[in-house]
């Protein structure tokens, strides 16, 4: 029996301890926000928070997260009461297919827990492990800047005028 804490609730599970966290979240706990993208830790679609750090849940065995706090997008807010990061992504319409977006929001959340005044380079660096194929990057960046403002901080806008 393995005990993990997900979105504030303690769950006891009878699963193979080598099972990566992603399959437990989706298969056993019915939490679908974290996505399978590669199973290789290359694309970030599966990203969740472990305590306050973003991890690739597709390659993190469930045994490694015992006694630590896992947060998924479901833990950031609900469709009725979205969290600040979710609201910012909605306000910026920062999704096309949206498949990568839960991973992006988790990385944004991790960054903004650390600082609500990240530099543009820090924002991009935080998101660098996550891939988006639709090319929604500019909106995702705008959403993170908006979320930083919503948390009382901000990110200097990187757009520069044509010289």
């Amino acid at each position, binding site marked *: 029996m393995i005990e993990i804490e997900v979105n504030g609730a303690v769950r006891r599970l009878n699963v193979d301890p080598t099972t990566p966290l992603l399959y437990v979240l989706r298969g056993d706990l019915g939490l679908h926000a974290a996505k399978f993208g590669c199973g290789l830790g290359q694309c970030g679609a599966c990203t969740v928070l472990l305590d306050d750090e973003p991890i690739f849940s597709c390659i993190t065995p469930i045994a490694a997260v015992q006694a630590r706090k896992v947060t998924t997008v479901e833990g950031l807010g609900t469709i009725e009461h979205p969290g600040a990061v979710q609201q910012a992504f909605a306000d910026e319409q920062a999704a096309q297919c*949206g498949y990568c977006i839960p991973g992006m929001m988790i990385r944004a959340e991790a960054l903004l827990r650390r600082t609500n005044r990240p530099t543009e380079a820090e924002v991009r660096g935080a998101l660098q492990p996550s891939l988006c194929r639709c090319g929604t990057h500019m909106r995702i960046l705008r959403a993170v800047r908006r979320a930083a403002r919503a948390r009382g901080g901000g990110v200097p806008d990187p757009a520069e005028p044509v010289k």
Partner: protein
Amino acid sequence: MSVLSRRELLAAGGVVVFFSLVAHAAPQAGETRKGDQGANGPKPVAPGLPGSLSKFPMLDAWIRVAPDGKATIFTGKAELGQGIKTALLQLAADELDLPLSSTTLVTADTGRTVNEGVTAGSHSMQDSGTAIANAAANVRLLLVEAAAARWKLAVEQLGTENGTVRAPDGRTLSYGELANTLSLHVAARTGVARKNPSKRRLIGRDQPRVDIPAKLTGGIAYVHDLTLPGMLHARVIRGPSHGTRWTNLDVGLLARLPGVIKVVRRGRFIAIVGPREWPLIEALRVAGQTKWEPTHDPWPAGDLAAALKQAPAQNLPILQRQAPLAIPPAQIITARYTRPYLMHGSIGPSCAVALFDGENLKIWSHSQGVYPLRDAIAALVRLPPERVRCIHMEGSGCYGHNGADDVAADAALTAIETPGRPIRMLWTREQEHGWEPLGSAMLVELKAGLDPLGHIATWSHDVWSTPHNSRPAGPGDLIAGTELDPPLAPTPPKPIPQPEGGGDRNAIPLYQIPNATVVNHFIPGAFLRVSALRSLGAHMNIFAIESFMDELAAAARHDPVAFRQGHLADSRAKEVIRFAAEQFGWSSYRDRPGRAAGFAFARYKNLGAYCAVAMDVEVDADAGRTIVHRAVAAVDSGDAVNPNGIRNQIEGAIVQSLSWTGIEGVAFDPQHRTSFDWSSYPILRFADVPRSVEVHIVNRPGQPFLGTGEAGQAPSAAALANAIARATGERRREMPIART
């Protein structure tokens, strides 16, 4: 197509021989049987009606009004992340005079919606949007007529608002009350006027997308998330890439692995089934030890462009414009451009859920064409099509024909052998990279003559490409079909005819050139598996044409933007170019060493959206980086329904095209693909996307929809190339152009 083999052709001295063998080809003749990029589905039965209404004129195929006054809208098109759901609802709600919240949308489902073919070719707004808007105008008129009859008033005296019909004296009747007495199972009438654009409440205004909230909060948003009672997971076992097969698979061993409760075998098709995903993935690792062999002649290992040029081709002249030359050209300029194979590269590997109840088969799929897929799968599993239902459910963005159809067939074959249990089939990342149909490798050769005044006097464009469409037209087009014993044969590829074209999409220049020839060298015998990748040949043809326009402008010593304007007659094209240049600040921008601006334009398919892109690009040779400081686009998609949706699509197109054009290319050796994950097929990440992207819309209320989804890729490619050329003095004609 000739009977000469490639070897004989090479022995005979190459392409010249072949050119003369294919005499007087008739490129426009005949129909493209295989999903012709959105224009397929059945033939029109009511040609006087607009959009897909011409094929399905009955109003209740599109709109039903419930007794509570709420409307359900039906479309045969699918949400692919392009925002079509929201735009279609805006159209319907506005034309019906209903609040958006009183409408719901049913998308592509062979059990509920009409057959609008494939959601492709930027056709959804013009096919389905036009049908829904006009059906809504018809329904609104019927409701008004019903109220007029009840009140014994003239139709002209009545108005509609907020789901009610209103009389001049203030009496109202709700749509729900009227719908009770009204059949919508009637054909649309021709000539029913749509609302005056000045009366619109929703069309033309930014509308938050209806699909986004669930995607942001862990809702069941994708077929990947679908969970049905008793559902089992499944994985398929194949060689490492298309063009390979396993040789010594120990099926008995697979069946004994923990967590595998069943092995489905049909010929060479092998799927493993179990209640949990992780044990199946571990079983795949065991199966991955299996030896494999190629199933094809060795692929060209060296110069891909040379191999394309030497391959047997149908040489199809698509433009022969000749006018007497007053004076011979003063300069002749030639150039040759190449593109490697590109991947769709969906972030989520392809997935499908299938359930066979012993009689009927139901499949949830992110296919772009539920009807063609249903028919192909019905033939594959030998069920009559009416016993197979295919329901679209979103997947990860597809950008064309990816593994969606194939994985649906894998799920169907597995489900047929597992009656009563829903089967969720998911490809691995390596399978998606290895087996998805790629965007074709291409070669374009251009030659132009400039007259002494610097105008283009002559032009020739030759494009060589393998096919851009292998969508399922039969069971042999699905990977699983080729694994049966005996294997089913794929449908022979055919060129997609002009005016839309496939490899020759956008090969005809929009510019005014008195003497121009364009030849499409269609290579039916693809090396690697290929099919439709967003914008098809337009990405490459416009990359070439618009790069070449800059090369010609430089030779003529003209400003690139002015040079384009000087060769255009289409006023909307000129306006989009002017607008993009103005918003970018083209006339005041000054190039400097290592940093410069590039410009490009295209009208997608020469009949869709107009899009111009300007880019401010820095090439840092020491750091090995290409930095796009700013990209500015102007787009005219006709009547803009959801401007924010259009901006989202074009922003995405710019970034996606920077990745395709700048850094991508499928690696392969003579036996198999060697790009099998994101490390062996890198795409653009956050550090290298532009500092800023702006999209400006030229709205044309009341004009036809021109589509948006594929308009931005091609001009973005050339804008990047042109900026790099001006920044470095080096013209890069071989994609990827920003790799260091």
